């Protein structure tokens, strides 16, 4: 039997580049906002878990520094994953399932502006065969896009529609770093490709930022939040690391995660997808079985601002917020990790 666990509070911040702020300075107000919204100090938190990668800013043990933003004195129960914060949320959910605690603080952040993210991402490739070739992230995504276009699973018109959906939806989203109320399919198709066939609007706008989420179990959640976002299903699946063995027009792990999380058991009002490219957003919509009655990335999604290591937890936070304020009754938050959507996590949340 599983415990009922809900997202009761979220806080996030995102901008194009943090040029005068450390990760610690970034996270202090975000963590305090998330805890403060439910009247918490760190003493009220049973478990703390974070997600980040030192490769982004090129600073060793930056995640240890960032604990300064939490206030880890006296010593706290804490963990870290070298993954998007969505996986830190998953670990916290498991920890809450085990019992003994009723609350958890989850946070993640990414500051990739000090380096060249498209090159840094090459370090996630296997170190013997692909890594030494240093294919940058845009080139790899373009390779996938070419296969998708040539095999007919998508066309340029459809990719441009996804880009426009993000650009238009982000126009009123203060967290978005790229938006355009005037963008049209024609204006996107008129863009010069940066990694043929991908155009600038096909690639997520890189951002720096952070996000914090408070989880609570059972009645504790009801005390803290007027309308908790109950996690009804959460699942993580992985496709092979070696891209050569995969059908790059598909993401079976996304489909499996959605099935296991029970995404299709009822109508979904909204889905927030962490796809760094329009091509991958297209794949996800198909694999997750999202229909026309589900609003997908209504405020721009990850395309409008992609904070590496936090984009997934930000999507879960965006989805939970729609439950909190009554805009939706059943939502899906998605996180991805690795090359070509290799890893996928699906979190289905409901209001009461």
């Amino acid at each position, binding site marked *: 039997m599983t415990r009922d666990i809900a997202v009761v509070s979220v806080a996030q911040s995102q901008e194009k580049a943090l040029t005068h702020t450390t990760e*610690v300075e970034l996270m*202090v107000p975000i963590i305090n906002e998330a805890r403060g919204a439910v009247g918490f100090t760190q003493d009220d938190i049973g478990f703390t878990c974070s997600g980040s990668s030192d490769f982004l800013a*090129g600073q060793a043990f930056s995640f240890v520094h960032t604990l300064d933003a939490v206030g880890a*004195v006296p010593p706290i129960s804490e963990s870290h994953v070298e993954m998007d914060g969505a996986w830190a949320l998953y670990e916290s959910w498991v920890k809450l399932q085990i019992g003994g605690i009723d609350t958890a603080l989850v946070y993640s952040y990414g*500051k990739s502006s*000090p380096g*060249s993210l498209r090159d840094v991402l090459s370090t996630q490739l296997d170190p013997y065969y692909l890594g030494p070739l240093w294919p940058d992230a845009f080139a790899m995504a373009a390779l996938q896009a070419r296969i998708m276009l040539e095999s007919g699973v998508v066309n340029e018109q459809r990719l441009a529609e996804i880009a426009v959906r993000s650009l238009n939806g982000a126009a009123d989203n203060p967290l978005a770093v790229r938006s355009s109320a005037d963008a049209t399919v024609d204006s996107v198709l008129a863009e010069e490709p940066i990694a043929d066939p991908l155009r600038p609007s096909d690639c997520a706008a890189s951002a720096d930022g952070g996000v914090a989420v408070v989880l609570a179990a059972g009645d504790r959640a009801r005390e803290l939040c007027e309308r908790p976002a109950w996690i009804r299903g959460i699942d993580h699946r992985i496709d092979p690391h070696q891209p050569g063995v995969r059908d790059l027009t598909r993401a079976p792990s996304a489909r499996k995660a959605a099935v296991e999380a029970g995404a299709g058991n009822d109508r979904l009002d909204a889905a927030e997808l962490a796809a760094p490219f329009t091509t991958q957003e297209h794949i996800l919509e198909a694999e997750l079985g999202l229909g026309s009655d589900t609003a997908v990335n209504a405020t721009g999604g990850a395309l409008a601002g992609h904070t590496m290591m936090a984009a997934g937890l930000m999507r879960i936070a965006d989805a939970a917020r729609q439950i909190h304020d009554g805009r939706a009754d059943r939502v899906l938050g998605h996180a991805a990790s690795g090359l070509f959507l290799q890893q996928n996590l699906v979190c289905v949340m409901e209001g009461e």
Partner: protein
Amino acid sequence: MSADPSIPPAALSGEVRLPEKLADVEPVRSVRTPIRLEYDFIPGSASSGYLNAFADRKILGQRSPVDGAVFVPPRGVDPRHGAATPDYVELPDTGHVGGFCVTRLPIPGRDDLEIPYVSAWIHLDGADIGFLGLVAGIDTSEVRMGMRVRAVWKPDDQLGRTAENILYWEPTGEPDIPVTAAGTNAWHAKQAAESGEQAAGEEG
């Protein structure tokens, strides 16, 4: 396939069978895959204030909004409480040795350091935590906890926005402060007293 975990997988046991034509080829024993990534370091708000002040021969700390504790170098946060520390405090360049070690081995790339040398936690007057510095101008066997020191700065025309402006710390010749009040001992005693507990003297 064996289910016994004490038996290593075939790939590690030397039983790997190669195709005939590779039988006499020298096996690959290592591969080199150089990695080079460049970053622009961003010191952030608190460290920028700290480093900029060094150009004016000033040492800046930050004050905790929770209990007034002064931290140097400043990091923008009181790590005990996760509270932002926007207020800077200018500190004097005098203090005492809160702890030290004598190193008798050279550090690669630091030919300027003559061994033996003394690394010490320098506790500035008015600061509640120490920071790292070199102690010189005294025989290494004479260095002790509680010894009063002052900064020896580079000449004014060589000052930059860097902590390297302080060449080392030298004894002032003033009387030592008691070991029980040196380093973090004084701070911990103060905190214990403030929280109503018995000021623990065992650490001294």
